[in-house]
C-alpha cells in the first residue's frame, strides 16, 4: 500500500473500512477518543456493529442511541466523572430485544486486546475468582500453569474487524505518535484486521523519524490515515485541547431524555456534513479548551 493512498477524508475512511456487522473498536481511555469517527459511522447509517472498548463513553452511547449497535463488549459503561450512559442503560434495562452485552473488568479487556495484538488465542491473568463475572460471561475461563499447577483466569483474544485510533500526530503512512495516556491504542491497532489512524496533525516522515521512541503504532499495520483536528472533542488530546467537561456534564440531561437525545443527534450529527461543520458551529471552543504550553525538552538520538 503506498503511503499517499492512505490519506483520506473521514467520510472515505469510514465508507471503505467500516461495514454493517463489523466489530469495531474506537479506542481511547478518556484521552483521544475519536468522536468524529463515531459521528461519521452514525451518519453513514452502519448497523449491527459489535462495539468494543473498555469504557464505552459518550460516543458509544450516541451510537447505541442511533441504532448502530447490536452488541457491546466492555468493562465500564459510565459517563466518566459525571454519571450514567442512559442510552446504554435503556438498551439493557428496557429495550426489546435488549442490547447484547459481553462484560469483563478493565484488566480482562486489556488482556483480550493484548492477546489479539500478539496473535495468541488467550491471555492468562490473576483475576475473577470469587466474582460473579464468569457466571454471566462464559468467555471468562481458566487455564492451568504447566509449571506450578496454579489455576489462572484466561480471556480470549479480541481481534476486531476495525480499530479507529486517534493520535496526536502521524505521517502519511500511518506511523503514529502519542503521548499522555496511551489507552489500549497500540493493542487495538495490532489486534484489528483494518486500522484507521486519525490524527490532530499530519506530519512529514522526518518528524516521526526524529523521535522514534514516541511512535506507538507503525504504519505497516495502518490502512487509512485521516487528518481531523479536534476530532476527539469532547474527549481531549494532551498538548492540543482539554476535555470538555461541561459537555460530559450536559450529556446527563440529554442522554436521560430519549427525545432530547434524538434531537441532539439530529442537530449535531445528522444535521452536519463533517467535523469541520461541527467545529464551526462552536465558535468559542478553541478559546475555551486549547491547551496551555508545557513543553518537554527533547533528547539526543546521536551516536
Amino acid at each position: 500500500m503506498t503511503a499517499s493512498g492512505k490519506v483520506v477524508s473521514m467520510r472515505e475512511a469510514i465508507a471503505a473500512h467500516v461495514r454493517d456487522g463489523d466489530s469495531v473498536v474506537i479506542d481511547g481511555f478518556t484521552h483521544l477518543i475519536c468522536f468524529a469517527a463515531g459521528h461519521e459511522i452514525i451518519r453513514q447509517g452502519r448497523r449491527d456493529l459489535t462495539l468494543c472498548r473498555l469504557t464505552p463513553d459518550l460516543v458509544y452511547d450516541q451510537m447505541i442511541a442511533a441504532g448502530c449497535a447490536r452488541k457491546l463488549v466492555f468493562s465500564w459503561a459510565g459517563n466518566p466523572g459525571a454519571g450514567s450512559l442512559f442510552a446504554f442503560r435503556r438498551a439493557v434495562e428496557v429495550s426489546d430485544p435488549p442490547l447484547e452485552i459481553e462484560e469483563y473488568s478493565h484488566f480482562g479487556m486489556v488482556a483480550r486486546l493484548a492477546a489479539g495484538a500478539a496473535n495468541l488465542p488467550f491471555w492468562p491473568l490473576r483475576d475473577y475468582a470469587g466474582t460473579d463475572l464468569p457466571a454471566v460471561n462464559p468467555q471468562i475461563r481458566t487455564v492451568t500453569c504447566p509449571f506450578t499447577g496454579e489455576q489462572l483466569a484466561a480471556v480470549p483474544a479480541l481481534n476486531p474487524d476495525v480499530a479507529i485510533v486517534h493520535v496526536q500526530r502521524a505521517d502519511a503512512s500511518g506511523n503514529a505518535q502519542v503521548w499522555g495516556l496511551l489507552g489500549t491504542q497500540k493493542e487495538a491497532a495490532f489486534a484489528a484486521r483494518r486500522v484507521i489512524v486519525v490524527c490532530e496533525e499530519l506530519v512529514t516522515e522526518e518528524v516521526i523519524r526524529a523521535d522514534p521512541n514516541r511512535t506507538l503504532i507503525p504504519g505497516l499495520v495502518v490502512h487509512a490515515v485521516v487528518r481531523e483536528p479536534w476530532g476527539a472533542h469532547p474527549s481531549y488530546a494532551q498538548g492540543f485541547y482539554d476535555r470538555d467537561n461541561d459537555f460530559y456534564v450536559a450529556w446527563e440531561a440529554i442522554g436521560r431524555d430519549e427525545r432530547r437525545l434524538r434531537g441532539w443527534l439530529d442537530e449535531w450529527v445528522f444535521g452536519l456534513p463533517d467535523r469541520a461543520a461541527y467545529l464551526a458551529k462552536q465558535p468559542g471552543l478553541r478559546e475555551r479548551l486549547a491547551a496551555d504550553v508545557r513543553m518537554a525538552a527533547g533528547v539526543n538520538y546521536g551516536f
Partner: protein
Amino acid sequence: MVAAAPYTPQELMTVVAARELRDGEVVFVGIGLPNLACNLARATHAPNLVLIYESGAVGAVPERLPVSIGDPALVTGALMVASMADTFQCLLQGGRIEVGFLGGAQVDRHGNINTTAIGDYARPRVRLPGSGGATEIAIHARRTLVVGALSPRAFPAEVDFITTPGLRSRGRTRRELGHPGAGPVRVITDGGVLEANAGSGELELAALFPGVTADGVRERVGWPLVVRASLQPVAPPSAEDVRLLRDVLDPGRLFLKR
C-alpha cells in the same frame, strides 16, 4: 479551644478516608470520592503519596482535581505514564500496590462490592457501570479501602452481583480463592468506619462519627451489624481540611454535595 469548623458528614467521610493513607504509600486510586480523598491526603499529611491511576498515570500531581481517572492533569508533571497493560500486569498484578481505594455502589456484609447491576443481570432494574478496574484492584492491592455513604440499599446483607470480591465471596475466603491482598480492611462511611473481622470475614462497626449512634448506623445497614465493644472516636475535620476540600480541591462541587 478553637471551634470545630462546620462540616457535612460527606466531608468528614472524605477526611477520615484521607487519614487512612500513610505518607509515601503507593495507592491505586479509584474514580469519585477515593480520588478526592487521595488528593486531600496528598495536600495534607501525605505529600509523598504515589498516586497511580488505572489510566496509567504514576506519581500524578494534579494541579486541579481530576474530573475523571483519565484527566490530562494526571499526566502533566507525573513521574511516569505506563501503558494500561503494564499498569494492570506489572504494577497491580505484580504486587506493587499498597492500597487500593475504591468507591462502591453496594457493599455487603462480607465486603463484596456490586457495581454491575441491581436486580437480574440479564434485565436489571438498574444497570450500573460495571467493574472498571475494581475487580483486580481489590484482588491485588495489599489492602483495600472503600468509601461510601450509608443506606440500606447501599449496604445490603448480600449484593445481587459480586463485581469485586470482599473478605468472603459466596462462602469462600480470600485464601481459598487465592487472592494475594488482604481485601477491604476498612469501609469508611458517612456515619462511621466498618472494619474487617479476619475471623468471621464480616464488616463490623469500629468507629463512630461525632453525633452518630451505633443504632443510627445499624438502621442504615441491611444486616445485623456487629458493633465492637469499644468504638474508636473520630476527630472532626480540621478547618484546613474543610477549606482545602471546598476551596481548593472541589470548588466546583463535582463530588461534594453542598
